[in-house]
């Protein structure tokens, strides 16, 4: 976006291409660029080099400028429920998060709430081992709500600081599966009022506009308090979180940047916005 002697439509078209190709989505992009045009007019900006800066600020206004922390319980164990569609990185993110808490000297219990998919429990078991966390599990095909219940009970008796409940991947369009998720959440809340303190929706950075529907429906079902955006180590920019933020005020809290145990970072909005233009 260099080589412009004045601010013209071509400049805005270039900016539109960058944002759309980053998966911000065409509607959200047009809305944000309209705000930028307004600002350019209102502030009588003449130098094209300033437009990008105004655009970055406009995006930060949508997604929030400051990092957002994970919610902690005021007393007792903090319960984190991890949800999302199939294959986005829920189980792996839980493993990484557990290790982070363990490294901070916390006691962590993982609930093997995916009782459906082949070897899902085995997969989480390996991560529990890597992180040094306890694992609560039942038989394959058992009731995920019962696993969550037991994980909370174990957290109380073992005085755990964190309980992270894994759930099976599910498409938001499957109402019976969304009902199952609601039940898991209800059971958690009944067993420990105020829990789950954090409902983390995992979104894959390679996902396009469908993430907007995913976020909306998961939020309606179980109330999402934070987003973990995975696979940012690829070439996808994850711009869809801007589109998600346009409609829902759910902060992105974590990012996944690889498959190893320490490939987890806090989401820093300014860095994310810079990366959109890299």
């Amino acid at each position, binding site marked *: 976006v260099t080589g412009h002697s004045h601010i013209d439509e071509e400049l805005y078209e270039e900016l539109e291409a960058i944002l759309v190709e980053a998966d911000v989505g065409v509607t959200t992009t047009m809305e944000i660029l309209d705000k930028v045009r307004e600002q350019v007019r209102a502030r009588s900006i003449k130098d094209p080099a300033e437009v990008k800066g105004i655009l970055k600020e406009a995006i930060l206004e949508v997604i929030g400028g400051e990092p957002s922390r994970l919610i902690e319980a005021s007393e007792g164990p903090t319960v984190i429920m991890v949800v999302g569609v199939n294959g986005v990185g829920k189980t792996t993110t839980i493993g990484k998060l557990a290790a982070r808490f363990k490294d901070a000297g916390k006691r962590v219990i993982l609930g093997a709430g995916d009782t459906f998919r082949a070897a899902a429990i085995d997969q989480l078991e390996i991560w529990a081992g890597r992180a040094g966390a306890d694992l609560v599990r039942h038989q394959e095909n058992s009731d995920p709500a019962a696993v969550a219940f037991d994980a909370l009970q174990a957290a109380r008796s073992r005085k755990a600081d964190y309980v992270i409940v894994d759930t099976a991947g599910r498409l938001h369009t499957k109402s019976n599966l969304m009902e199952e998720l609601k039940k898991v959440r209800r059971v958690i809340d009944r067993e420990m009022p105020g829990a789950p303190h954090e409902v983390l929706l995992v979104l894959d950075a390679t996902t396009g506009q469908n993430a907007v*529907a995913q976020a909306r429906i998961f939020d309606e079902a179980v109330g999402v308090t934070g987003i973990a955006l995975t696979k940012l180590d690829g070439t996808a920019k994850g711009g869809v979180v801007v589109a998600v933020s346009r409609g829902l005020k759910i902060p992105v809290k974590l990012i996944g940047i690889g498959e190893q145990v320490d490939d987890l970072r806090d989401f820093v909005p300014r860095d994310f916005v810079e990366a959109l233009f890299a």
Partner: protein
Amino acid sequence: NLAARLQETFKRLRGKGKLTEKDVEEALREVKLALLEADVNFKVVKDFIGRVKARAVGQEVLNSLTPGQQVVKVVYDELTELMGQTQSKLNFAAKPPTVIMMAGLQGSGKTTTAGKLALYLHKQGRRPLLVAGDVYRPAAIKQLEVLGEQLGIPVFSMGQGNPVEIAKTALEHAHSHGNDVVIIDTAGRLHIDEALMEELQAIRAAVAPQEILLVVDAMTGQDAVQVAETFNQRLELDGVVLTKLDGDARGGAALSVRAVTGKPIKFGAFGEKMDALEPFHPDRMASRILG
């Protein structure tokens, strides 16, 4: 929907007299928006609109009473043509066993699709062998073994060894056990991971698959172009499988992948169960993308 939006646009435009080429260009912006909202890649959309415009500025559109419908027809036809044939034909070896290699990004559905393909081929009267080539992901081997057990299909595994050795030994095993199709599951990987892309190339060199399938998640966004292009350049794909079509993603990635590789989408996956695999229908995909 798109047809209605186009009709609205043309109604407004024709209010000022006979339709012109410029009017069609303006209407095509609606098509561009629809395709971008469906996750078709930005550059692919540009090329596509260019092609459609060439066909949409003819007299049958400009003089039509329902130009919106005419344009939708041109778009739909062009899209269906681009999507390819309803051919789900896998390439089989003249002398068995046929080797099929799965490839793709992390979490796209390779392992699940491998199981489905095995069942599909088994129902055709073949004797498939599943090969546990993902030695990295925790419990990946177990995942494939559980699927194999559910299906009554043998799974070849050498634990967390060298995937190239595993593939070669699996081929020998297939020869000596009468398996006529070998389906190699591989670890998910980024197209920009040099070492892992070389691993795929090494497996390919070692066992010469008749069929290399790129597994792509239907909800993939703009990045589908980079991914498909790179995998194709490094491996020379034979086909694509589009997964998670049981969701509501419009699936524009299908058009992007097709446009940038020219390779056929051979199957669509519609669920987590082992029977949720169908031959790909380009016309159905075209309607889905257009919304």
